[in-house]
């Protein structure tokens, strides 16, 4: 009988091979899905994974989509390493977008670089405020942060819906639930002429670097790592668990908020009910697929962004719903978590 047998040591090779295995399994799953729906799998594969990258514009869109994912994932990874499970980045992202939009609309028709600066600040504060609710309830009342942060996603969605139907609605917008288009001074500058890739991509890259330094080069990052791996050891050493909860949630919330800002001040140029596009949840997948490692987050974000673009292409050319992106994302994470078993175990034949 085929059984799992413990390895003497974790396999280095498998820790790199297992994400690749998960990607292959995801592709196979996708082929089966296309086949089951009566679509040509080869054509589906081409549209989903090849055609989005066929020109420079496509590649710039890939980086554009990867930007919020990198921001969300690096912020979350800080908390996940200490087993602080912030599952509500989606809500924090929305509130960051809301706060940044409030600044943009307040300074409507004003000029000056301070507007963008304030928008970034407002975005991160908005996200952090939303994340501080689960942090406060966790540290004060021992309330489960997974459920609280998740419930606040729904509340945030309803809040943005109310805002764009009311206080933030475009006064000349024929009652469409959306804000005014932001002025030039409230939009992020473009990086490459003729594309939509904007300065937020640089935020994301710097966030990855800062995240790396914090995680691997700071004493506090070390403490959080210890807390994640061995809670009792961390308590014994006197590391404050409450502080870790706060830092874990605030970093996730702040980064998600900046991601929300980068979306309203970037490709959207306004705020609507659909500000999020599920980036908050996809960012969680990115963080896990990347094993909470900043370099990994860079590549996993690009992969996840490709799944978004592929989904859009499939919607356009194959008349498939855009939710197919979520199907692929969910499959990828499930397969990865499953394949990771081979880091510590191997398959072996055994009698009986």
């Amino acid at each position, binding site marked *: 009988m085929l059984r799992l047998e413990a390895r003497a040591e974790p396999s280095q090779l498998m820790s790199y091979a297992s994400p690749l295995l998960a990607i292959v399994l995801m592709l196979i799953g996708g082929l089966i899905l296309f086949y089951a729906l009566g679509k040509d799998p080869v054509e589906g594969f081409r549209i989903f994974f090849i055609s989005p990258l066929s020109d420079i514009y496509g590649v710039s869109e890939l980086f554009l989509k990867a930007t919020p994912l990198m921001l969300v994932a690096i912020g979350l990874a800080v908390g996940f390493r200490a087993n602080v499970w912030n*599952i509500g980045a989606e809500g924090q992202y929305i509130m960051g977008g809301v706060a940044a939009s409030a600044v943009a609309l307040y300074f409507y028709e004003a000029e000056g670089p301070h507007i963008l600066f304030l928008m970034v600040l407002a975005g991160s504060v908005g996200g952090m405020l939303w994340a501080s609710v689960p942090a406060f309830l966790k540290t004060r009342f*021992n309330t489960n942060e997974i459920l609280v942060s998740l*419930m606040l996603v729904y*509340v945030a969605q309803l809040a943005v819906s109310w805002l764009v139907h009311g206080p933030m609605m475009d006064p000349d917008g024929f009652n469409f639930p959306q804000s005014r288009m932001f002025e030039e001074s409230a939009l992020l500058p473009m990086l490459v002429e003729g594309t939509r890739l904007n300065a937020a991509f640089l935020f994301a890259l710097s966030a990855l670097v800062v995240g790396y330094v914090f995680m691997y080069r700071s004493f506090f990052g070390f403490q959080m790592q210890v807390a994640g791996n061995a809670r009792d050891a961390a308590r014994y050493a006197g590391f404050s668990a409450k502080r870790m909860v706060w830092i874990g949630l605030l970093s996730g919330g702040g980064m998600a908020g900046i991601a929300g800002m980068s979306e309203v001040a970037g490709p959207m140029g306004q705020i609507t009910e659909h500000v999020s596009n599920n980036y908050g949840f996809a960012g969680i997948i990115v963080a896990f697929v990347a094993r909470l490692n900043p370099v990994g987050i860079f590549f996993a974000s690009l992969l996840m962004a490709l799944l978004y673009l592929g989904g859009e292409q499939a919607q356009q050319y194959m008349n498939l719903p855009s*939710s197919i992106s*979520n199907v692929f994302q969910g499959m990828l994470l499930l397969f990865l978590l*499953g394949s990771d078993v081979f880091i510590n175990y191997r398959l072996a034949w055994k009698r009986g």
Partner: protein
Amino acid sequence: MSIDLIESILFATIIAGTPLIIVALGQLIAEKSGVLNLGAEGMMAMGAIAGFAVTFHTGNPWLGVLAGMVAGALMSLLFAIVVLTLMGNQVASGLALSIFGVGLSAFVGKPYESEILETVGTLPIPLLADLPIIGGPIFNQQPLVYLSWAILAGVAWFLYKSRPGLLLRAVGESPSSAHSIGYPVIRIRYMATLFGGAMAGIGGSFLSVFYTPLWVEGMVAGRGWIAIALVVFATWRPFRVMVGAYLFGGVMVAQLFVQGSGLEINIPSQFLSSLPYLATIIVLVIISRDQNTVRLNAPVSLGQPYRPDA
């Protein structure tokens, strides 16, 4: 307030609480065995679309419920393979299952989006249904409401009065002791997880076949997560799950009644719609405030992978 209004509020509250009871009881069994499956939202979504599609094509709502149950169980099987056989992280796997299920349900449900089903009538229980006030809301209900009570009674009996139930609890408290006296920990956890999935599937199909007989993307609307919160709120006790579910049902219904009543109150509808989620947070705070309540009642091995060293 007129008697009629009280009756209809009570009736609607019980219906709104029913899917929560069914789903939460399924989760409760899984959690008692030590498995935390955060995929309830995705399993419910798949149950909802499977139930809707089968009912739509066959015209038989019971086949729909059966299909929902099978869909939920299949989803939980996927989860079980990842976390039980392959020892994946339960929190992350459950979340992946939710994202996958919600996405897949939207995907396969696309062709059904503008369709509606025939409304399934209530099933009056002879004599009892004629009682004043409670007769209508309690004894002239949707068939699945009665089923939810049967499941509640069954789960309570199983956990506290039956031998396999004792075994299940033992596995959740200490898998290594259960294993050392010769019980198949992994197999028991598989069965508990599948039960949780099947119940989530039934709960989902209740939404799309009975509650609002139509399919809309995202119609589960966080009920899977609320059901998971309910289990914590109920401190892993079946009867408290029912109490909590009706409380939530009441909050959901109150919001609809206020919106539908035409009362001149200046509250945005979005605020009213957010009440169930805010209520979830509040009850979680109340129940978790005393650290010991949750710690003493939660199954000790909840969320921990286990591998018997054969």
